[in-house]
């Protein structure tokens, strides 16, 4: 059965989740990337959207203004961006906003793990590049804030239904799927590289 998280998300909804679990999201999903993080944490500007209990999406979408309704947008394509870019500010961002779910791509680091554990939040990944699939889970683009940052960096407030699959990559217990995988990859790497190198003695 599909495990669906619905905003506003409570701490208790996240406690039973572990890295590698697959979940779906219904409710509010708001995009926020590098510039949104730095405006809040570094420039101390108040966010124009309340993220408490909601989900943030590391994503820079393609949106199209609806011709008959100026200021209203439809989503064309909206896949995840590389989450690691936000690692620098994510712990403080979780603390300042009270967000509960981060949706992105690839792993994040110890800063985010600490934030997720302390403030009860999770990081999940949506399959990278699958941007039309993601767009089909969006019911409505309610509004946009900070459009002065440009289309990819603005905060797009979307209402989504069963948005996923979302793979839990950081849980509330300190688990980090990508760090775990990276350790395995690095362990395998040494002997493989050594073996390849036995065939590459090309220097005269």
């Amino acid at each position, binding site marked *: 059965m599909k495990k669906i998280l619905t905003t506003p998300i409570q701490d208790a909804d996240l406690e039973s989740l572990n890295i590698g679990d*697959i979940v779906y999201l219904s409710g509010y999903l708001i995009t926020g990337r590098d510039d949104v993080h730095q405006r809040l944490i570094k420039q101390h500007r108040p966010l124009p959207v309340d993220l408490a209990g909601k989900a943030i999406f590391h994503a820079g979408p393609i949106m199209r203004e609806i011709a008959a309704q100026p200021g209203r947008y439809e989503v064309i*394509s*909206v896949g995840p961006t590389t989450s690691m870019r936000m690692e620098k500010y994510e712990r403080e961002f979780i603390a300042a906003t009270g967000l509960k779910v981060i949706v992105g791509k690839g792993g994040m680091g110890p800063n985010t793990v600490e934030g997720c554990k302390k403030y009860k939040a999770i990081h999940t990944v949506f399959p990278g*590049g*699958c941007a*039309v699939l993601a767009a089909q889970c969006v019911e409505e683009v309610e509004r946009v804030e900070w459009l002065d940052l*440009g289309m990819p960096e603005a905060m797009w407030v979307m209402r989504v239904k069963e948005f996923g699959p979302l793979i839990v990559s950081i849980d509330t217990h300190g688990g980090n799927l990508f760090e775990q995988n990276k350790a395995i990859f690095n362990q395998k790497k040494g002997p493989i590289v050594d073996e*390849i190198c036995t065939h590459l003695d*090309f*220097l005269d």
Partner: protein
Amino acid sequence: MEHSEKYQDLVRLLASMTAYTSKHLPDDVLAKLKELRTQETTPLAKVVYDSMFTDLDMANKLDRPCCQDTGVIQYFVQMGSHFPYVDEMEDALRDAVKVATKMAPLRHNAVEIFDEKNTGNNVGTRIPWIDWEVVPQRDDVRVYTYLAGGGCSLPGTAKVLMPLEGYEGVVKFVFDQITSYGINACPPLLVGVGIAGSVEVAAKLSKKALLRPIGSRNSNPRGAMMEQRMEKGLNEIQIGPGGLTGANSVMGVHIEQAARHPATIAVGLSTGCWAHRRSLLHIFADLSYEVLSHKGAEL
């Protein structure tokens, strides 16, 4: 510059190809992904491949860019020296980007350095990036369009090694980067490696390596052997789709080379994500054309 009457036709053709590239993967990439998909057995790897193929189907049906990050647009042009529109080609490519940005639509991805403003039409200082090669005594032109997103551009790196680090040093350099940065760049990746004497030559060749069809091999037997061994080795690490572990890691490893200085071995690395959006368009002197990368494509 005064443009010829046929100029708008050329712009339309290049814009259509650019928009098309954002929505459809080339035949070789699609075939490789299908092959890799069949080898997966774990639930996570399967769910990611299922998502990828559903996404490609939807992009096709809805006529939309399959990935939202349509990249900073790059063109690699093999220009016949007698192509009738040689003087107009650069303007045509810049205009084509503006047209394609609205037509597709593409994401706005050109941010001016220092001013830190998005130009809003994918055209900016030296962007689209255009790489020119002159082909003597020909009147046709081949245009590679490549839309590389930010995700698969992040692992890009280059370094000049001491010669005694040898080709072994090249392999270590590539493997270290793929197992760290590469896992976030939407694997299975196409790995492009440039080997040369200085850093900018190696870097440029690493990008050109990504233009080669998957399955093609380096022109030198040692180069071809090195490609195969690196490919097999990376696959044995089993990074899997999305870096979530699986049966494989890469779609391929391509190496391109230039003669080096005796005192240096430079290595460059570029990666292409699974949604490797590149196309090859062959334009004739009368502006008739054939799409070489996507069989049956209609522009």
